[in-house]
Every structure is written in C-alpha cells, then in structure tokens.
C-alpha cells in the first residue's frame, strides 16, 4: 500500500530523511517512531505529496510520489491528521467537515452521512453546531481526525495524534484507531509514544533521519540483548545455585531467595533454568521476565544513530 525505496529529503545542507526504505501492507497499522527532528513529519509530508523528495522512490496506493499527475490521485486516496489540528476556529464542527467533504468531491448525501457517522463515533455529534474554536484540545484533535476521514480514505497518515492530550482523550483516539484498523484502513502513525506504538501498531519503524529498524514490537524488543529473568524461590541453597550455574546463562545475582539471571532469549532459556531448579529440589514462587522492552530497543537504536 505504501512503499519507499532509498527515500531522501534534504533542506540545503541538512538531510532530514536519509535513504529510507520500508513497506506498509494494506490494512496494517504502521508506527513511525523517532525523536523530535528525526524526519517523521518530513516523511509523511513527502508521502502526502505536500513536499517533494530529493531522491529515492515512493509509492502510495499504486501511485508514484513525485509524479505531478499522480499527486492529486494520492491526495484523494489518503487522509492526513497533521501535527497541528489546523481547524477553522470560527466555523462550527459541522461546517469544518462539510468544507473538506466538498473539496474531496463528496456528494451532499455522502457528506451528511459521514459527518454524522464520524462525529457520533468520536462523541462530538451533540457539539456539531458549536464553533471549533471553543473546543478543548482533545475535542479539536478528534475533529481533526474526523476531518481526515470525511472522504473515507483507504490510507490514513496520523502525525502524533495523541500528543498533548490528556490520558482519557488519548485513550479515545487510540480506541478509535483500533476501530479503523477493524475496517481494514491502512494507518501510518507518527509517534514518539512508545506505549501507544506497542499497543496499536502491527509493525514499527524506528527512524532517526536514517531508518534504524523495522519489525513487530516483539521483534524490536529482541534486537536488544540483556533481558533478565527473576526467580523467587522458597529457599535457596548451594545445590540449586550450582545447578543453575551449570547452565549456559549470563550473569547470576543472588539476593536472599531471589535469583536474577541475564538471559538472551527468555522464552527458550527459562524452561531449562526452571527445570534445573526443580530437579535440584527447589520450590518456585514466581518467574518474571524484566528488561529489554520496546523502550530499551528504541533508546539503544536512537543512541547508536547519534
């Protein structure tokens, strides 16, 4: 649905996006993670045909980004939630959406239907005649999302849709994205909220001008070694510790009856550790895997790039 190959954008001497290659499948929620200034917004703007690329190739919905003839077709195919909501504050919620519906060539019936549908889904229908300028930040963000969907696009680009929102509004937006996912919309989500990316994205790309990694949240977590297994025993003794030390594991730290073991692949190694402890007569109270989250992977990759 979206594909880039060596996509690059320079502003003078500064390279904002450097040689980025990835592919987003139809119906996928694709997270684009990166620190401020990583090139996330620039990438979205290139893919939305808002700014040109310096080099490389990009294709959105079968149309070539950069081809003048395809630009309007791409813009018709996509919806964009920019990082700034950019609503017409003196116009009502309804009029804001109606204006965009007209620009996307929606018929009067389609506009009426979609405005009611999306404002209802986002809990704004009761406020349809109220000026957008009086809305709270969360309501404005929801209205901006409704605006991007007014023409029922196949692909949705969202640039940090939950930034600066309170937890409740963020949850509403996240739940809404998951609803859209059920409708098989392809969603390209720019964010630096790791928790959000982990919860709703099928795959995540980590960008810091260059593309550092692409994969599912679990695949990215595995990129970082140094995960730990913490085992709480009823009673520790030398026999148990000797049995554990015989295994090909990393560092072992013993504090009271708690063993903390460095492991590379806990899903594989934990079974052998537990088996060794039980065979040595140990009684387990709990086994917990800690460390090496998506955050660890993200920080490692971003720091490596710096």
């Amino acid at each position: 649905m979206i594909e880039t190959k060596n996509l690059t954008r320079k502003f003078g001497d500064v390279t904002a996006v450097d040689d980025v290659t990835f592919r987003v499948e139809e119906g996928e929620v694709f997270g684009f993670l990166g620190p401020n200034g990583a090139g996330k917004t620039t990438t979205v703007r290139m893919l939305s045909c808002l700014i040109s690329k310096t080099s490389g190739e990009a294709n959105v919905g079968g149309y070539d980004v950069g081809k003048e003839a395809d630009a309007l077709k791409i813009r018709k195919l996509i919806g964009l939630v920019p990082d700034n909501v950019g609503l017409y504050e003196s116009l009502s919620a309804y009029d804001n959406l109606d204006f965009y519906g007209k620009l996307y060539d929606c018929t009067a019936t389609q506009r009426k239907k979609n405005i009611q549908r999306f404002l209802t889904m986002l809990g704004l229908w009761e406020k349809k005649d109220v000026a957008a300028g009086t809305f709270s930040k969360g309501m404005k963000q929801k209205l901006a999302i409704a605006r991007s969907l007014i023409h029922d696009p196949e692909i949705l680009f969202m640039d940090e849709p939950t930034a600066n929102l309170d937890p409740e509004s963020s949850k509403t937006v996240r739940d809404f994205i998951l609803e859209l996912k059920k409708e098989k919309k392809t969603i390209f989500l720019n964010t630096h909220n790791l928790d959000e990316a982990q919860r709703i994205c099928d795959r995540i790309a980590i960008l810091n001008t260059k593309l550092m990694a692409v994969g599912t949240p679990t695949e990215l977590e595995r990129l970082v070694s140094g995960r730990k297994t913490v085992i709480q025993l009823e009673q520790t003794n030398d026999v148990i510790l000797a049995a554990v030390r015989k295994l090909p594991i990393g560092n072992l730290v013993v504090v009271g009856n708690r063993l903390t073991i460095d492991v590379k692949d806990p899903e594989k190694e934990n079974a052998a550790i537990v088996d060794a402890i039980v065979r040595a007569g140990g009684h387990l109270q709990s086994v917990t895997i800690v460390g090496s989250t998506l955050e660890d992977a993200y920080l490692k990759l971003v720091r490596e790039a710096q």
Partner: protein
Amino acid sequence: MRLSKSWIIASKDFKTYRKKRNIIYSLVVTPLIVAILIPTVINFAGHKNGANGIPASELMVLLPAFLFFFVILAAYIPTPIASYTIVGEKVEKSLEPLLATPTTDGEILLGKGIAAFLPPLIAVLGGATVFMTYMDVTTHSTLGYYYFPNWDAVTPLLTLVPLAALLSVQVNVIVSSRISDVRSGQQIGVLTILPFAGLYVAGELDIIDLGSTSAYLIILGALLVVDVLLFFVSRTTFRREEILTKWR
C-alpha cells in the same frame, strides 16, 4: 484549474467573514465614510460664508478627481481581508490540511484571491454608487443635469478599481509569505495605497490631469503590467512546498 474548487474555498472564507466583526466594519464603514463624507465636505465648503456652492466649472474638475478616492480605497480595503485569509490560515495552521486535499496550488490561490478580491470590489463599487448618487442630488441645481453616471467617470472606475484591488491582494499574498501575524501583514500591505495616493497628490498639484484620457490609459497600462508581474511572483510564493517549509 477547476473553478469549482476555488469557489468552495472562497465560499468558506465568505462564511468566516460573516463571523468577524472587524472585517465587516472594514468592508462597510470605510467606503460609506468616503462616500458620504466627501460630498458633505464639498457642500459645506461651497456654502461657506453665504456662497452659493462650488461653481459648475470647478465641479467638473473636482468630481472625477474625488472619484479617484475609490481607486485608492480599492487598494486599501483588500488588505485586512487578504491578511486574514492568508496569514489567518497560517496563524491557525490550517493551510497544511488544506494543502493535503486534492486541490492544486493555483486553485487554492485563486480561491483565496476571490475571497480577498470580491467583497472589497463590491464594497468599493457600492460606496462609489452612494457617492455618485449623493453628488448628483447635491450638484444638480448647479450643473442643471446629473453628472453621474457618465462614461468618462465610470470607465476608469470599472477598470482601475478592480486592477487596484487585484494589486493589493497580490501584494498581500507575497507579504504573507514573509510575516507571521495578521497585524504586521496589514501594516505592510496597506503601503499599497502609496502609489495611488501619490497619483492623487500629483493630480492636485497639476502634475498630471487625472481626468484626461492619456493619464487614464497610462495608469491602466501600468497597473496591468504590475498586476501581471505580481501574479507570477505570487504564484511562485504560493507553492505548497514554500508554504510548508519556508513560511514561518
């Protein structure tokens, strides 16, 4: 270029004007003040110290000259509106979602142009109509006929007013790319009236005869050339890439 898209954009702006009191004031009040104040002052001056009004020979010079005020007005009135339509979008950060729609830069620019051009044009021509009617009523007794409308006066009005308004709109588009608040835009944009005010002063100082056909044709030609040049400059300035990466 699809005119329907430009009209959708212009219609949206018309809708927002109705909710902006300062825009309505600038559109209605200024032309009305000029339309009513000038004839009132002329009448007052003509009847000062018991005089019987301005003589017919002087009225023939004054009336077309005062009509030139509406050309100056046409260069001034689009400024607050053009500043609002373009810098306002910039301030509200609503240009990016607009640029992301399937519309071309030319369609958006034309829509913004129509929105900034049509209301002032109607307001100025409306004000000029009030002025001409008022002058006809008050000068009929002196002249013995209604001076307005006449082709010598109305032709410059119908040609120079739109061209002056167009020039003002285009200057404001260009100014918008370099400034970030509506007030600064208005302050710089209002400088558009200077060449027109200069022409009026030159007319009053008898350097040029604003009522002559040759002066009219020179002004018309100059405005056409400047408008065409500014069109290309504003087209270059109003490109989505420029707006998103360089407009601050």
